[in-house]
Every structure is written in structure tokens, then in C-alpha cells.
């Protein structure tokens, strides 16, 4: 169990790096990072579902330079880890998924403030570099790598803290929730899906581009109708 927590926390460090600091090849996006958490912990499906929900909800969060954005990527990674580990530990996977999704939202909010703190720290590293009597390529490389290392450490630390804190919260909270509610709490997945779709639609509502949206929805429904028809005909 604790070995799994360490593995997910280290992955959280890489997620934090990919979000803004390094590469940005979108392995940190919830759809990918949560699925990787699923693979690392040997339960792909819950990770994939959590990733799907968070991908939609945080679709319009942009990691633009100075903007304060919710760390949806890290929140989703913590949520995926919690959903799998708590489900396995407690034997109540449905309750674990609902709880993990809510915990992930809180972690993403906390992550936003940690990013701001890191930027301030980066500014002081930069100032100290510029105040040096001699600036060498080695000194610049060391300063830059220190900033990257701090980002990695922050991602790992936040993921670890999120997993540990919410693990204990769940352990104390779960007995208070009647077991009969578990299956119905799983329905929160549809709530998240609805929220995500609203975020996506609102993005295009603000841009006043309705006809491509309608065309896409029409195409999707047509595809759904045709596949249903084909499946009915096959039977």
C-alpha cells in the first residue's frame, strides 16, 4: 500500500513538471496521467474514468505564464490514486470513486497556491543569480535546474500529502456512510460529466461559434443512431 503511495507521488512530481515547467507533451493531462496511475496500480478502469471527468472539467484551464490556474492535473492524479487505493483498501470502490473525485478538486485548488509560491521562489533564485559578481554557464544551468527540482519536489509533496491526508479522512468518514448509498454515489460520475460538458459548451458560447458545434453534435447523434441501427439489424 505505502509503496503504491510513493510510486503515485513520484509520478505526481513528473505531472507537475510536464504541466508547465518541462516538455509540456501533455502526459500530465488528466486523461493520460490518471490512466498511467491506473496502470501503475494495476487497475486501469477507475483511473481512466477519473481522468475523463477531470479532463472535461479542467479543459479551459490554461497554464499561461502569470495566470493563477487550478492544478487540475495534480488534483486528477491524486484523485485517481485515491480511487484505486481506497477502493482496494476498503472494499467499497463506488464510494471511493465519489470521495476521490471530491478530494481531487480540493487538491487542485491547493495546487494553485503552491505554484504561486514556487514562482516567487524562482524570482529570488533569479535575483541571486543576477547579483553574483560572475555569471557562468554552469551557474545559470544550476539555477535553472534548481527551479525544475523545486517544481518536481512540490508536485511529489502535494501528491503525497493529498494521498495521505485523504486516506485518513476516508478511513474515518467511510463507516458513517451507509453501504447502501455506495452504488448511488457512483452516479456522481454523471454530474462530473455534465459539468465538464457545460464548461466545453460555454467555451464556444463565448466565442459565438454555434454552427460547428451543432454540426458536431448532429454528426455524433447520427453516428450513435447508425451504430444502434446496425447493432439492432445484426441481432
Amino acid at each position, binding site marked *: 500500500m505505502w509503496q503504491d503511495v510513493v510510486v503515485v507521488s513520484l509520478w505526481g512530481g513528473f505531472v507537475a513538471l510536464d504541466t508547465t515547467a518541462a516538455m509540456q507533451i501533455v502526459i500530465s493531462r488528466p486523461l493520460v496521467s490518471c490512466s498511467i496511475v491506473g496502470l501503475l496500480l494495476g487497475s486501469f478502469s477507475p483511473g481512466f474514468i477519473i481522468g475523463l471527468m477531470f479532463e472535461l472539467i479542467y479543459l479551459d484551464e490554461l497554464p*499561461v505564464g502569470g495566470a493563477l490556474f487550478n492544478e487540475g492535473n495534480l488534483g486528477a492524479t491524486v484523485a485517481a490514486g485515491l480511487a484505486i487505493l481506497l477502493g482496494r483498501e476498503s472494499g467499497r470502490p463506488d464510494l471511493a470513486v465519489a470521495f476521490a473525485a471530491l478530494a481531487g478538486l480540493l487538491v487542485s485548488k491547493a495546487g494553485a497556491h503552491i505554484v504561486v509560491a514556487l514562482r516567487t521562489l524562482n524570482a529570488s533564485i533569479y535575483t541571486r543569480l543576477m547579483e553574483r559578481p560572475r555569471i557562468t554557464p554552469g551557474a545559470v544551468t544550476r539555477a535553472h535546474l534548481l527551479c525544475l527540482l523545486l517544481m518536481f519536489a512540490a508536485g511529489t509533496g502535494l501528491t503525497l500529502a493529498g494521498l495521505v491526508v485523504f486516506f485518513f479522512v476516508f478511513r474515518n468518514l467511510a463507516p458513517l456512510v451507509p453501504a447502501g448509498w455506495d452504488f*448511488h454515489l457512483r452516479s456522481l460520475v454523471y*454530474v462530473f460529466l455534465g459539468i465538464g460538458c457545460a464548461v466545453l459548451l460555454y467555451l464556444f458560447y463565448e466565442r459565438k461559434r454555434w454552427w460547428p458545434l451543432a454540426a458536431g453534435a448532429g454528426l455524433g447523434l447520427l453516428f450513435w443512431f447508425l451504430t444502434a441501427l446496425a447493432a439492432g439489424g445484426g441481432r
Partner: protein
Amino acid sequence: MKSRLRTFDLWNMFWRCLFIQGSWNHKSMLGLGFGFSAIPFIKRLFKTQRQREECLRRHLDFFNSHPYYASWCLGAVAKLEEEAKRKKWDDSRPIEIFKERLIGPLGAIGDRLFWDGIKPAAAGAGIALALTAGWIAIPVFLLLYNIPHLAVRIYGLREGYRQGFDIVSGLSVRRYQRWFDVMMMAGGVIAGLVLAAAVRWSWLQGAGRMDPLHAESFVPPALFAGALLLTWVALHFRISRHWTIAGAVLLGIIISLAAAAL
């Protein structure tokens, strides 16, 4: 010949440029990352510590851009530093002014093309595919996003180094307008596909898992539609994202437990 960059130096700059945003801060923004990425050409062009330090200080100054488009500026600056060394320029100020002038277009083009266009479109395609076809969505999403992403970075560095000052002519927002429009349209169609896929998914989950004669079978589509409407209204009235989600989730819990009790 000694002070010309080699292909290895350009690849080294490209590799470092992938980490350019690693030290983003409010004082120099991408300045430290730019200086870090410039080290290969600085080491190649300048042999004395004093020359290297002068050049480093120039490129550690304030700089900002979209991170993927920073490579365009980096390539061009490498070319200009090379020319300045070869032709023995008295003043390096033109290089600094050139960098300052590029900040606006590089940011505007990159933000509109990637953050407003390619990112939501690729993620939307991934989501639509994930809801209909499962895990295959992950490699598709990674490819859809990273092919243009890495192409822009590599092309920008190469063209910047080839053209130097002339790179400016290719970096006008107007020249990119067609691409912005195409991406915006593709994004809209994909968003529509996501909506259709989400409706289908929630509908099939409800009908597939429960008895259609019971109220419970309508819970998934009802929760989906309710959360969508509530969030839409909240977004319209600029209510905080987290309060909106908290409200929708709370209502969702109440509705699903009420349906279970019926």
C-alpha cells in the same frame, strides 16, 4: 568557420528549450530559461569568460513568449549573435531590440493557436473517443497534440537560425488568421461530438445497468442534464468554478439518494 554553430548545438538548444518555462518567475518571466537554452551557442561562439558573461547577461534579461514559440526567437538570436561575432558589430543593442519586438507576436500567435485551438480540439477528440472507444483515445490525444507541438518547436528553431532578423516577416497574427479559423471550427465540431458522446454514454449507462421501469434508470441522464444546466447558469453569472462544482455535486448526491429511496 570556428564560430559557426553545428547541428549538434541546434539539437542541444532544442532539448534545453523544452525546459524553457522551468524557471518562470515574475521578474524575468522566461528570461532565465532563455539564458539556459542559449548556453550551447554561447559556449560555441565565445571562448573567453568575459565574452560569455556579457552574452549571458544579455539573454538572462526579461523575455516572454508562448513557450513553444520561444524556439523561433532562440534560433534567430543564435544567428544574430553569430553574425555579430563574424562581422564584429560594435553594438549588441539591435539583438536586444529584436528580442523585445518578438515578445508580442510570439505570445499572441502561440496562445491563440495552441491554448485556444489545438489544445481544446485535441483534448475534445480524446474525450469523445474515450467515451466511445476506450483507451485508444490516449495515444490519439498524445499524437494529435504533440505532432504540431514538436513540429512548431523544431521548425521555429531551424527557420529562426536560417532567417535571423527576417523571421519577423513570417510572424504576423494576420498570416496565421486562417489557421486560427480552421482550429476554431474544428474545435467547435469536436465539442459537438463530445456532447453527443456524453449524452449517449450517460443514457446507455442508465439503461444498461438498471431496470427502465424504475426511477433509478433515469438518474444518469437526469444528473448529466441537471449538472450541465446548473453549471451553464453558474458560468454565465461568473460564479466560481469550485462553488459551482460543489453545488452540482451536492444536488447530485441528493437527487441520486432520493431516486434510490423512491
